[in-house]
């Protein structure tokens, strides 16, 4: 068990982060390279100012018309994305690892807050899954990959919570937690989770078109 732990916490973790960063860089680079090769015309319509305007407006909760049309989903989705990164960066167990690895640290979340957040995120994952099933317009465009990706995202939280509460064998849970997080990291650049990387490009492009050519808001 110890050996597996060392493998998952050591080389695999490094590999996962490396694949994540390299993969992400590749993803963005390749998208831009194809754009340069085939959509040269479009690049002429990218305006930094309007791209930023669009990105900012879509980053403010309840700022766009559609966000106000779907207040519950908007609240939940913003919470989910923020909580995801907050937990990743500020949870004390993660901090310990970072400190051991790099000798740096920053403020951490009190465990109880982290715990509540993690449970809430799990709740959101259930919400996303249920929404996929019961909303016809979502269900119609859902296939197994959507549930697969949701499972990938849920797994680190589920195993994290279980480990923290010492449900099941602690060591096993920690290993599963790290493993699932590593799989998620690796998956981001190569699946539709890459919206994390591409969203600002698609947003920025359409924001430019709307702002610069069409003189109208895109939100």
């Amino acid at each position, binding site marked *: 068990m110890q050996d597996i732990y060392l493998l998952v916490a050591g080389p695999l973790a490094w590999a996962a982060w490396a694949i994540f960063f390299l993969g992400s860089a590749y993803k963005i680079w390749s*998208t*831009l390279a*194809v*754009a340069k*090769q*085939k*959509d040269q*015309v*479009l690049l*002429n*319509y990218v305006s930094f100012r309007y791209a930023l305007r*669009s990105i900012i407006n*879509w980053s403010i909760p309840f700022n*766009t*018309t*559609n966000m106000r*049309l*779907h207040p519950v*989903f908007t609240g939940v989705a913003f919470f989910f994305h923020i909580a995801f990164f907050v937990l990743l960066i500020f949870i004390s167990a993660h901090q310990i690892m970072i400190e051991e690895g790099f000798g740096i640290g920053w403020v951490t979340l009190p465990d109880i807050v982290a715990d509540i957040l993690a449970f809430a995120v799990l709740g959101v994952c259930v919400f996303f899954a249920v929404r996929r099933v019961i*909303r*016809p*317009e*979502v*269900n*119609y*465009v*859902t*296939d197994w990959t*959507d549930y697969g990706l949701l499972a990938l995202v849920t797994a680190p939280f589920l195993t994290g919570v279980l480990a923290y509460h010492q449900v099941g064998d602690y060591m096993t849970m920690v290993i599963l937690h790290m493993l699932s997080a590593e799989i998620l990291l690796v998956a981001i650049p190569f699946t*539709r989770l*890459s*919206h994390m990387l*591409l*969203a600002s*490009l*698609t*947003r920025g*492009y*359409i*924001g430019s078109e*709307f702002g610069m*050519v*069409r*003189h*109208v*808001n*895109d*939100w």
Partner: protein
Amino acid sequence: MKERVWIQDEGIDRGAEKLTPERIEKTINAVLGNEAGARLKAYVETCAHCGLCAEACHFYMSRDKDPRFSPVGKVKQTIWEMLDKKGKVSVEFMKQAVQVAQTECNLCRRCVQYCPFGIDIAYMMSLVRRIAHKLEITPLYIQDTAHSHSATMNQMWVKDDEWIDALHWQEDEIREELPAARIPLDKEGAEIMYSVIGPEPKFRTQLIYQAAAIMNETGCDWTMPATPGWDNSDMAMYTGDSEMMGRLKRMHFDTAARLRVKKIVMGECGHAFRSVYDTGNRVLGWRMPPVPVIHALEFYWDLLNSGKLKVAKKFEEPVTFHDPCNVVRGRGLHEKAREVVRAFCTNLVEMYPNKEHNYCCAAGGGVINCGPPFKNARVEGNRIKAEQLRATGVKVCIAPCHNCHGGLEDIIHKYKLDIELKFLGEIIYDCMEKPNAV
């Protein structure tokens, strides 16, 4: 889910008879693989299948939220399947795909404003149309219009002499009211080239009359071309025939260049504006149109604000204003348009949602041009617009776009609304000061 009824169309059916699986595969891969690039790739890879774009679409809203009419639902029925199967789709599939892309999407781009990632579904529907064009399964009626474009360089098979006759006739007419008025043909060095769409000389000559009255009474230095190039409309843009779109726009811009005008002013049409201002110039390699292009709404606003256009009396009856997507979501003219409407009308009652969030009339994007076979489906697909119109309680709707007129007329008829449609120019013509009138 209810079984879908697919409509029979001669153009689609006859074209489909000649299709082979190899040809479909080759064409799809050529368009999606070669012509499309990073944009399509990013859209497909970013879409979270979240369905948040659904409520943006009037077809979805009007069809009791049937998910097959949601924007992303249309992508699923077309692009996703083509990509998944790497182009190995059946003839039957292609017949349905062209129907989805060509008759159930107005390319109105409302959904773009509702997708968190700004995914341009209208662009993807255009790609499907492009594939259908290359496979020769475009619906019959719109293809006929595209043929007219390529044979005559106008939309309505108007012959060169018929065009000039129509203008002379309107000039004769107008001189009874405004004796000094002219419709200057081919005047080199004029400031403005005024261009219209094919149907104007054919069925709506009174619009040329009214525009001429406005031009003359506000003292504009203007001209209309006597040669092909006068028509700014463009159904080729909507059938995915980019090559033909390029020829049309080149002729239009060349004509403006030949006449050495400073700008092109266009009549009240939405799609033509999109073609000249946004799409056609790109096909020809101009980032922005080589000659400034001014839509009628902006032109009226300019005239009003420079003091050339003066209000003689107000239009008293309450009116509502339909925002044509192509000049609102396509050019942000909604505020200027309202300023002009308010200047000429006492009571403007808004529809909601409006301005850049308007619902399309369901005629645009070439859908009305697909003709009678698709008329019922189109009108049923826009119940929501009828409800919007009804809620205003007014009896006059200003719609500054030809296609919108067609689409709204059908809706008014089908949903038994007691509303009269007007172009803004009509109201201006009625209510403006005409210093030279007898």
